[in-house]
């Protein structure tokens, strides 16, 4: 059980890393894209601004963390 937990923790840290908010944002953006596409609407435009926004927010959080440590 402990080994299984360790395995999943390792996989989580490997793929998601230390910023779960970005991962959640990607999943939600893909879900919104799927909903729009399923409704027959144009959906390609969802991902680019969301990805750039997630990156900027992630960088902002990391930079704030770095300045607090520094």
């Amino acid at each position, binding site marked *: 059980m402990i080994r299984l937990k360790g395995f999943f923790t390792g996989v989580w840290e*490997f*793929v*998601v*890393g230390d*910023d779960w908010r*970005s*991962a959640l944002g*990607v*999943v939600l953006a*893909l*879900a919104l*894209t*799927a909903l*729009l*596409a*399923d409704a027959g609407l*144009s*959906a*390609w435009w*969802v*991902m*680019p601004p969301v*990805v*750039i926004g*997630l*990156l*900027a927010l*992630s*960088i*902002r959080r*990391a*930079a*704030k963390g*770095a*300045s607090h440590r520094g």
Partner: protein
Amino acid sequence: MSGAEIGLVLSVFLACAVEAVEALTIVLAVGATRSWSSALSGVGAATLALAAIVAALGPTLTSLPIGVLRVIVGGLLLIFGLQWLRKAILRAAGLKARHDELQTYAQETEAARAAGAMHSGFDGYAFAISFKGVLLEGLEVAFIVLTFGANQQRVGLAAAAAALAVLLVIAGGAAARAPLARVPENTMKFAVGVMLSSFGMFWGAEGAGASWPGGDGALLAIIPGILMAALALVWTLRRATRWAAGERAVPAVPAVAREPVVLAEPAMAAEPAMAAEPPGQAAADA
């Protein structure tokens, strides 16, 4: 070779070269300090483990329906790529330590010497450190090979690009007999982050049912777009860091040195302090 296949080869090659340079430093350190045969045995065992992972997961992934595969793998690739890109941006802006192979080599060598006396024959320390180093660095490459390769049904091409990168790094390391400190690792990681994020976004959206304008040609806009956004973030961070440094420098001026000026000419005394302030605190927080 199509544009997407060129992107696959380039991304896998760069990612694999960077990780191979890091693994090479570890192997060189333990090999030169302790035992070459044990260190190389660790490399061989880790390579076999990585090959087994790719061989086991590759057919499973490629057997999935393409839509399901693209949304799952595209999403994972995008999440993974954003991690790479975030670290690369922070390094480029000076907020995270850059990789320094000479420093890593020195640390690994020191640790290998401090690990205790060597026994004759097989050296468990050299084997374990080499195995762990190659396996951990290689797992990221295996992930990229599998995701890129499976998405285009070209796992073999991705594996060939990875193998070519490893061979070139090994040849470079053998020729130099030292860590490859002059390889522009940070720039390469930045490029890989841009490619992983771009392809992940493209495939993820396609898998979710979206149709990109221009089909595969949309990548010609997506990749430069992500690159420009990442460079803009580096520029903003560097500017904010400079302003923050200037702000911190103001209190460092000895109060005694400022006092006579304030007493003599109050109007002029205000100028240095104003000039040292950042143009906008909001921008410094960005």
